[in-house]
């Protein structure tokens, strides 16, 4: 049958058309990914506003009991405060004797955590009598020598409401006194009074609205793009592979790159349409007054012009392309639809990290931040919406991020290589069996991270020292044991072997200790660099665990902050979780997953990268030495250097980093199993 050679452009359009047609006909996926979110935005904004109003109204109508001790404030001030408090809704004023609080003032003024804790306990005794808040006049040694100090129970809504009323009353009294004093000083006629301070905001309504929208839209865009694009990417790659149509497609006289390019185009178009539709829904909700952005509730109407919105969308295009390409890469690697779905959450978290830069007011768009993938466009979108446009910077951001997107798109062209799609000669069932260890290990890892967030943080809020100990020495080991038991059963191996609890070589232990100073300096360098793009909030250093545990003895502090994390975290992450990962994944992939899990477990975007690096390095140490103990020792040494302060003093000199050389050399010596030790486990 003679016919002309197929034309690549026609083939591209043919594949693209078929992808879009298949998507269009999947009404259920279209509805849930595209239509439903659009409908939910008005409900979300309205619902949130209604709930807030209802909650505030309910609280404002409730009676609150406030304990007062204003004997040290002077009769006039005390009288005025009582009068103004009585005007702040249903309130019962109860006279108390705050002598115990006054007695602690000298100690509290030093800022010693133990004294602050005693003050808290003394105040709590008053709350136990049924009071929602306290207002106490405390005499101090420093001007103004009398301080009005409110106390509240922050965990109780009613206590917070009582505090709001106290604050309003106090502000009114302060204003009255200020007015009177100014009149006296200026010798003004009291009958004329002072004009009130009137706030004048030089920002236009459009700038204000744009600033508020700029904090929200980049985050929303990531969610929307990934949810809409995921439907297309999953169907185009993982879904086709699972259904058997991908193999058929790869046997057609179409270059694999053409097929991949057409599928990418389908994902990109779908993501764009989703973004536009959802964006219009959000803007429409705001424009018609069905909801308001945080900080703009009192403003009359939403006033961001279409020009700014279009420009903001335009500067965000590189991120759209990059996210679409990443979706293709992730779904292209997945063997099944379900596996692809599981990979979407980590992708979302990774995409959110740089995007969150746009929510930090003190992070500016500059030459460095503009080049950060996803971060640069997010900052540019924010700046465009609030009216800060620097064209050369925007052009640089666009070019840099387009380069990132092009790099990702180039990789998409390779994912339909038959080698990657059909790498193993064994059947899918065998592959699924082999990879079950790593899949389950990742699930346990995520469970552990969530447990640290929920259970660990609750325990530590209750008691920092005890909570830390329970989290690190009970919660994590228990989860680790449960995870490792499953791995051992499937691998038909001993539990101790699965957890790599075999005795280490002395050389490995020595190498681990040598590596610690260099690791400290490396993470400090990373932390310092990170602050140029992600400055620490001012409160970050004020209440670290070290200060909060000052009341605990030095030995206990080292045990809690150096040894306990080393034991508990290593047992869980490098013992139990790594046991599953290393059965299916190459070492670098194991290290990458440990980077993500360990970084996420420390619950701070500022600590994510430095602790992730530590996690990855500890993984490689464990894999190389085939024993958990060198990683435990390295982790404990690292923590000890930080807790003891030696990292900032005796070991601060860069020369200490050179210890990494002999340390690495020692760690590279063969592990115990490689020297003929019994492994105690069978290959699964």
């Amino acid at each position, binding site marked *: 049958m003679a016919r002309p050679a197929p034309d690549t452009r026609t083939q591209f359009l043919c594949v693209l058309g078929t992808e879009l047609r298949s998507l269009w006909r999947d009404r259920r996926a279209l509805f849930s990914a595209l239509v439903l979110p659009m409908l939910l935005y008005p409900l979300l904004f309205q619902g949130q506003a209604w709930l807030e109003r209802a909650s505030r109204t309910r609280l404002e109508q409730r009676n609150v009991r406030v304990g007062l001790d204003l004997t040290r404030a002077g009769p006039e001030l005390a009288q005025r405060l009582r009068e103004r408090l009585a005007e702040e809704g249903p309130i019962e004023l109860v006279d108390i004797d705050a002598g115990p609080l006054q007695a602690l003032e000298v100690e509290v003024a030093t800022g010693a955590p133990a004294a602050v804790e005693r003050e808290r306990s003394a105040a709590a005794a008053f709350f136990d009598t049924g009071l929602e808040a306290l207002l106490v006049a405390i005499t101090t040694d420093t001007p103004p020598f009398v301080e009005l100090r409110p106390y509240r129970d922050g965990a109780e809504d009613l206590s917070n409401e009582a505090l709001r009323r106290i604050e309003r009353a106090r502000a009114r009294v302060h204003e009255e006194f200020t007015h009177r004093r100014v009149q006296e000083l200026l010798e003004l006629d009291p009958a004329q009074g002072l004009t009130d301070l009137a706030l004048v905001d030089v920002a236009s309504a459009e700038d204000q609205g744009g600033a508020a929208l700029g904090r929200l839209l980049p985050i929303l865009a990531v969610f929307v793009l990934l949810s809409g694009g995921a439907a297309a990417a999953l169907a185009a790659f993982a879904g086709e592979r699972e259904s058997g149509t991908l*193999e058929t497609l790869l046997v*057609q006289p179409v270059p694999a790159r053409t097929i991949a390019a057409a599928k990418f185009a389908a994902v990109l178009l779908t993501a764009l349409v989703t973004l536009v539709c959802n964006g219009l829904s959000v803007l429409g909700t705001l424009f018609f007054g069905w909801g308001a952005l945080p900080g703009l509730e009192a403003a009359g109407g939403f006033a961001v012009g279409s020009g700014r919105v279009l420009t903001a969308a335009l500067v965000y295009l590189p991120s759209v392309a990059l996210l679409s390409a990443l979706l293709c890469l992730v779904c292209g690697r997945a063997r099944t639809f379900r596996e692809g779905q599981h990979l979407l959450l980590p992708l979302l978290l990774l995409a959110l990290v740089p995007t969150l830069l746009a929510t930090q007011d003190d992070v500016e768009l500059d030459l460095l931040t503009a080049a950060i993938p996803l971060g640069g466009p997010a900052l540019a979108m924010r700046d465009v919406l609030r009216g800060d446009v620097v064209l050369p910077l925007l052009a640089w951001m666009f070019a840099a991020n387009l380069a990132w997107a092009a790099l990702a798109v180039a990789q998409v062209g390779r994912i339909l290589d038959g080698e990657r799609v059909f790498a193993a*000669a064994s059947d899918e069932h065998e592959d699924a069996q082999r990879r079950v260890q790593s899949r389950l290990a990742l699930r346990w890892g995520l469970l552990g991270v969530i447990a640290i967030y929920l259970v660990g943080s609750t325990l530590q809020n209750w008691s920092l020292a005890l909570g830390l100990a329970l989290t690190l020495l009970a919660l994590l080991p228990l989860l680790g044991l449960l995870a490792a038991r499953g791995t051992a059963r499937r691998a038909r191996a001993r539990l101790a072997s699965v957890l790599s609890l075999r005795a280490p070589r002395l050389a490995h232990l020595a190498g681990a200790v040598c590596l610690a100073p260099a690791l400290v300096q490396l993470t400090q360098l990373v932390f310092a660099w990170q602050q140029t793009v992600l400055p620490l909030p001012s409160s970050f250093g004020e209440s670290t665990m070290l200060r909060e545990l000052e009341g605990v003895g030095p030995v206990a502090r080292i045990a809690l902050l150096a040894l306990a994390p080393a034991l508990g975290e290593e047992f869980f992450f490098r013992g139990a979780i790594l046991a599953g990962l290393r059965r299916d994944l190459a070492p670098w992939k194991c290290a990458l997953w440990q980077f993500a899990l360990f970084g996420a477990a420390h619950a701070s975007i500022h600590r994510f990268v430095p602790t992730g690096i530590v996690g990855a390095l500890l993984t490689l140490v464990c894999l190389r030495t085939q024993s958990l103990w060198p990683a435990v020792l390295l982790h404990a040494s690292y923590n000890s250097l930080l807790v003891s302060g030696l990292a900032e003093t005796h070991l601060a000199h860069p020369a200490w980093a050179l210890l990494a050389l002999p340390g690495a050399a020692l760690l590279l010596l063969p592990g115990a199993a490689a020297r003929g030790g019994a492994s105690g486990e069978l290959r699964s």
Partner: protein
Amino acid sequence: MNAIEARGLVKSYADPSRGVVQAVRGIDLECRAGEIFGLLGPNGAGKTTTLRMLATILAPSAGTARIAGVDVVAEPLRARQLLGFLSGTTGLYPRLSPRETLEYFGKLHGLAGTALQARVAELIEVFGLGSYADGRCEALSTGQRQKVSIARAVLHDPPVLILDEPTTGLDVLASSAMIEFIESRRAAGTCVLFSTHVLSEAERLCDRIGVIFAGRVLDVGTKAELAERTGQRWLEDIFKELVRRAELPDAASPATR
């Protein structure tokens, strides 16, 4: 010129848990036009990998292969124009109709306009797809899907058909229909290379049989030739004898016919 020719085909790949695995260890094959050649072997023997290399889905680690004289490594796209591929795991696009499926793959092969429409209509008639040609493939029965898959594989009238365990998962009737289709290709002058681990299929259909085990072709020939060389009557016993000989410490290299 042979319709299919393979010399020293090798396929190795790296597995994170098993290291380097050689799925195919040097396979020689020759298949003629109008011949039905069966590749017979157990699961994991290397049948699918061999067929995927011939179908240009996988690149050989070593060796050469040609489809109607076209090198599959040097000119994969041209080779794909000359072959039709169908496997037991081949699927259809659930939300396309059979007609749309055939039109789609026809366009990918360079068919267009009235020629495409005519060819699609012809296949719908030949394979009896008329009653469900415009419904979605997800609503079709197994047998109906199989017919659509076969029509798709022969849409561009290729001189070579490669079928990878085509009767896997099919019921008796569907399996019988597939066997009849394969037989019909002989009369059309098409070279059919198909893999199977079902001995009865090989006995009934194949002009020649290649026995494959552990990535190697142990022997090739008609059933009569294999029976004579192994001293066995039934194909099952022939297979076992060839495997036994291959596992001897000083086994000779496999014969090629």
